[in-house]
């Protein structure tokens, strides 16, 4: 089997499996998996900047929340489809604006600049509480959760919409990392001065990576609000900037499937351990330490290193 066929079979197989699970999962796990697919889309967006370009951003909650609020606030006025696009645009434009400033820095300074802007975004949401309802957030009316005749508050429609988003993001990431653009990002991650020496305009490429990452994060934020009917300031908090980093690290930075595997693993680790003990974060912490010790490249990164070298 050729490398291309293997890649298509693996990723296509996952999507088919997720579709099959729609028909067999009990309601609780069915709902969980819909949420995981949306959050994994967010993590996949984050992976473009962190896993493929090597930029450790601590501000991606800004783009997730930008998509969420742009969708949530505009949907009563412009309709669901256009509001979704507004969410994608808000994430992408926010990332370009932040990138124009933050990409002038490197390393720790980049982390701090992205973190500070995300915190500024969080505080802005709280400050303009008259519109955003501050910490409390707001519910998206059921009437606004209709898209192309589908009621997205319905569990089945919600699952399929989450799967459609995840499939779209997975396909886009797969295409991107195998395209020259993705190769260029990998060159920057491996060694930026070396990439510049070969003729790459590294600033523009990093900005393009930020834009793509922000747009996907914005799409995930908008979809989250639409599918689960709620937008809140907690999604703009630093926790939502750290989470995609953890998911990607666990799943395997710089692998297309890593964000999904990491999100799935972390979600169920916390979900299952919280059912056993109130100290569930301790269990999650120990699992993270063990994984870092024994699989420092993350789950899919380890699979690629030891088993499937062709894994994108």
């Amino acid at each position, binding site marked *: 089997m050729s490398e291309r066929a293997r890649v298509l079979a693996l990723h296509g197989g996952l999507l088919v499996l997720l579709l099959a699970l729609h028909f067999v999962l009990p309601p609780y796990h069915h709902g969980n998996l819909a949420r995981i697919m949306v959050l994994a889309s967010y993590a996949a967006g984050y992976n473009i900047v962190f896993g493929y370009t090597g930029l450790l951003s601590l501000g991606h909650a800004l783009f997730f929340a930008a998509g969420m609020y742009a969708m949530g606030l505009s949907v009563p006025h412009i309709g669901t489809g256009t509001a979704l696009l507004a969410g994608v645009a808000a994430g992408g434009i926010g990332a370009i604006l932040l990138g124009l400033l933050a990409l002038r820095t490197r390393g720790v300074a980049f982390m701090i600049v992205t973190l500070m802007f995300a915190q500024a975004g969080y505080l802005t949401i709280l400050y303009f509480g008259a519109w955003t309802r501050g910490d409390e957030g707001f519910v998206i009316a059921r009437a606004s959760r209709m898209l192309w005749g589908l009621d997205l508050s319905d569990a089945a429609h919600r699952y399929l919409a989450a799967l459609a988003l995840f499939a779209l993001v997975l396909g886009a990431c797969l295409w991107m990392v195998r395209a*020259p653009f993705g*190769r*260029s990002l*990998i*060159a920057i991650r*491996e*060694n930026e*001065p*070396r*990439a*510049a*020496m*070969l*003729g*790459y*305009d*590294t600033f523009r490429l990093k900005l393009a990576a930020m834009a793509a990452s922000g747009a996907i994060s914005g799409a995930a934020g908008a979809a989250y609000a639409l599918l689960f009917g709620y937008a809140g300031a907690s999604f703009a908090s630093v926790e939502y900037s750290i989470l995609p980093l953890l998911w990607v690290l666990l799943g395997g930075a710089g692998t297309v499937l890593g964000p999904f595997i990491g999100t799935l693993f972390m979600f169920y680790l916390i979900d299952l351990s919280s059912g056993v003990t109130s100290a569930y974060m301790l269990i999650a912490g120990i699992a993270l330490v063990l994984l870092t010790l024994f699989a420092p490249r993350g789950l899919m990164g380890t699979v690629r290193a030891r088993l499937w*070298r062709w894994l994108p």
Partner: protein
Amino acid sequence: MLELDRVSAGYGAAQVLRELSLSVSAGEILCLMGRNGAGKTTAMRAIMGLIPLMGGRVLLDGAEVSALAPHKVPRAGIGYVPQGRRLFAGLTVAQNLEIGMRTRSSPPEVLEEVLALFPRLRERYRQPAQTLSGGEQQMLATARALCLRPKALLLDEPTEGLQPSMVDALRQVTLQMRGRGVATILVEQRPDAALAIADRIAFIENGRGGEVVPVEMLRRDPSLLARYLGV
């Protein structure tokens, strides 16, 4: 073809090159020689725009490349193989070459041309660069630079620490590039290697250009070489 016109450059306040002037024509190999710290590598980096010029200019086919942003210099047609190879170690041979091809959106046949020059790389095509031998890594670094189809090629000590068969293979490729009209500047420490391949040898001392001597003259009288190098 490639010309340095009174180029001054350095690192921060420390000036290394002092009004260095050199030129190399199409289909010519110019070897830079000098003691350690004389400014040979700095000259290469200055040509590539990797360090800012304090004065002077670099011209390729009469067009000033020193006015370009560093990432535009390779696109203008100058390939650089730095000392120490500087590969993307974690990526495969194929991926390293793809990255080289991407810079100027080189047509696919360029890859075949390059692999024809280095058949060993075809055998190692899916292997990570870090697992290659030193000589193979040097081949890959050179091949990656050739993916640009450069008009001028800068080679910084390409044969340092390599076994004789690898040295010979790389030398053959450099000569083939000369045959295709590529202007090459080669930094070389070993006199025998320089004499074997160069058309002219330029001596640099303390960042200043010294004598530029046709290699036939040095072959006829090897004592001249020691005199120019001050050893």
